[in-house]
């Protein structure tokens, strides 16, 4: 019990911080009320430090993921907290400060906003420590439910409410689908424990193929979770929600549910393993394996469609937030390719052949870079008579930004290039790992599609680069938001994208996090051995899978 408490220490810290933020945000004094954001950042910092020192959890299907995933959550969460400052209650607080209104807690949203943000991050961390399907489901819902509310209350405009309602209903649909998948998976394997599922599936595969009910459960779960990562069958909400919510919240939506979804997918796929022959039976030796055929086809189709749809639709957008939303869909597709490639099973696996590590690293890089682009949108605004400023969301508004607002302009340029994956930048290394892991897994066709899509993506990312950098500004400089921390968040993420030339330390951490995922443990090896003995009788004895 106490060891579980050690594993969950970051979550507990975050939860207690949430409770504090919830109460502090409703305080009558403005000075105390403003502490909500620093306290949230403080809690994230402590949680991150605790997370780095978390031991591996042998009972988890992804035993080494906890320190990396939680530290990544806390780190990106810190950037997001900087960005989220001042999103809600702006005109209300201003009116209170001018003395026009008396402070009434029922009219303020600050407490809920930061508390829900922390709740969502707590859910994300819980996803990483999940050992059980029920736990995983609750964690995924804890990630999503607060984000519905955050999208709704992020601005006082009608479009935010529309976005929130749309997001909520489609989210409920997605949750229903993957819950149904989980139920079938439980029915097909007889356990909700992920390790138990892995053993049961390995046994079924060794004795003539995976139970179709379990297979249907896995596929339904993957399709349901594809809502969280904004992949194709469930991607429809993305653009509308990202556009409707305030830019800081959109930046959060692009990172938190996506990461949670990918971690959940990794957990479920690790329970299946990447060690199957095309027929679905367990692979004999250390040959190049893959997922069972039906899962492979499903995922590959989702990946190809997601990349293509995201990139092609992004080309047509005029709104920056919609463009970034479709680019977010495309990035999901890229990461799915590495997810299909899976961890390297070969004995002498290098860092370039671990697909799961590549996904984990890409998530971090994408999160950081994306915050930079959204920070620019969040910083530019058009003042409104009611005090709730409107964001500048049109591509034309970026024209000549490097001259009028050099800091923001350069942040946009660097981050767009980072998203594109230009060689010296952080984004390049992330994409490089995706490519190498997919190639080493033999997914040449997918790699080619990935390359083509990256080329398409260059069109619209270069728009984000050339408009601020090369064009002449029209008229005056656009107004900026009074919240310095947003600019700071943008600058910070641009600096990270620019300066971390070869981030070997983080890559190593990501690879270590993906270590031992999806391999079949010795406890279960007998079942595998039994299945391969038949083959061994025909051929010469083959070495058993490397332990």
């Amino acid at each position, binding site marked *: *019990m106490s060891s579980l408490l050690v594993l969950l220490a970051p979550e507990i810290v975050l939860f207690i911080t949430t*409770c504090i933020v*919830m*109460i502090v945000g*409703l305080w009558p004094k403005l000075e105390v009320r403003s502490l909500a954001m620093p306290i949230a950042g403080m809690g994230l910092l402590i949680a991150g430090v605790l997370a780095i020192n978390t031991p591996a959890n042998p009972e988890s299907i992804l035993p080494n993921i906890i320190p990396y995933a939680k530290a990544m959550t806390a780190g990106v969460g810190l950037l997001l907290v900087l960005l989220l400052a001042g999103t809600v209650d702006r005109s209300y607080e201003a009116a209170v400060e001018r003395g026009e209104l008396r402070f*009434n*807690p*029922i009219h303020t949203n600050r*407490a809920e906003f930061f508390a829900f943000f922390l709740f969502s991050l707590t859910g994300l961390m819980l996803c990483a420590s999940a050992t059980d399907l029920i736990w995983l489901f609750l964690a995924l819902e804890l990630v999503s439910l607060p984000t519905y509310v955050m999208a709704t209350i992020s601005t006082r405009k009608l479009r935010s409410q529309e976005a929130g309602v749309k997001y909520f209903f489609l989210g409920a649909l997605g949750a229903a689908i993957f819950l149904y998948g989980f139920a079938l998976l439980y029915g097909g394997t007889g356990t909700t424990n992920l390790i138990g599922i892995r053993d049961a599936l390995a046994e079924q595969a060794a004795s003539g193929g995976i139970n179709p009910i379990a297979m249907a459960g896995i596929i339904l779960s993957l399709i349901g979770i594809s809502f969280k990562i904004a992949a194709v069958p469930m991607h429809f909400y993305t653009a509308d929600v990202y556009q409707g919510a305030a830019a800081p919240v959109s930046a959060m939506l692009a990172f938190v549910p996506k990461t949670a979804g990918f971690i959940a997918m990794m957990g479920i796929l690790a329970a299946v393993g990447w060690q199957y022959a095309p027929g679905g039976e367990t692979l004999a030796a250390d040959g190049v394996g893959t997922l069972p055929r039906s899962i492979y086809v499903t995922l590959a189709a989702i990946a190809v469609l997601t990349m293509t749809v995201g990139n092609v639709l992004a080309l047509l957008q005029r709104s920056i937030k919609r463009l970034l939303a479709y680019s977010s869909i495309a990035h999901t597709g890229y990461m799915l390719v590495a997810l299909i490639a899976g961890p390297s099973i070969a004995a002498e696996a290098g860092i370039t052949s671990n697909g799961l590590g590549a996904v984990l690293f890409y998530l971090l890089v994408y999160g950081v870079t994306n915050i930079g682009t959204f920070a620019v949108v969040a910083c530019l605004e058009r003042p409104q008579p009611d005090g709730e400023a409107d964001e500048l969301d049109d591509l034309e508004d970026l024209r000549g930004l490097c001259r009028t607002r050099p800091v923001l302009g350069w942040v946009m340029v660097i981050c767009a290039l980072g998203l594109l994956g230009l060689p010296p930048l952080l984004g390049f290394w992330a994409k490089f790992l995706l490519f190498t892991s997919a190639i080493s897994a033999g997914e040449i066709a997918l790699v080619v599609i990935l390359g083509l899509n990256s080329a398409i993506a260059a069109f619209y990312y270069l728009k984000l680069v050339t408009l601020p950098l090369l064009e002449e500004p029209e008229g005056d400089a656009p107004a900026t938001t009074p919240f310095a921390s947003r600019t700071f968040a943008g600058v910070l993420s641009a600096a990270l994208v620019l300066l971390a030339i070869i981030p070997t330390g983080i890559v190593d951490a990501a690879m270590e996090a993906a270590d031992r995922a999806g391999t079949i443990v010795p406890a279960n090896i007998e079942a595998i051995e039994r299945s391969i003995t038949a083959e061994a009788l025909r051929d010469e004895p083959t070495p058993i899978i490397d332990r």
Partner: protein
Amino acid sequence: MLHPLTTLASQPNVALDQYLPLAVIIVGAVGFAVANIVLTKIIGPSRRGANKGMSYESGMNPVGTARKRFNVRFYLIAMVFLVFDVEIIFLYPWATTFPNLDPANPDAGIWLFRIFFFLFTTIVAYVYGFRKGVFNFD
């Protein structure tokens, strides 16, 4: 001293038989209610009329229907009630096992701590609701 019936609860085969009187009781109670209503329908007079059929609004002709939107505060009360009621229901099993636990048992402290953490979350919810003004009825 343990009561001779203490063991009753722990006998699974007795558990369902215990509820047999409940079935009889419910049938009796429902029978009482139905019989009364049917009886008065039979015995009592029955006359109808346009004015008689109106809803009673202190003698005025009723305006509109009564199924209108009402104060959102009632929803808030219902939600907060749910939080507390679920909490209390979870506490009952604990309340009957905790006193029987030996205080010297090292687990007793953990038991208490867990329940206090559970209560703590509710208290945070309560304080939050209080600050939000859910419990002001003016």
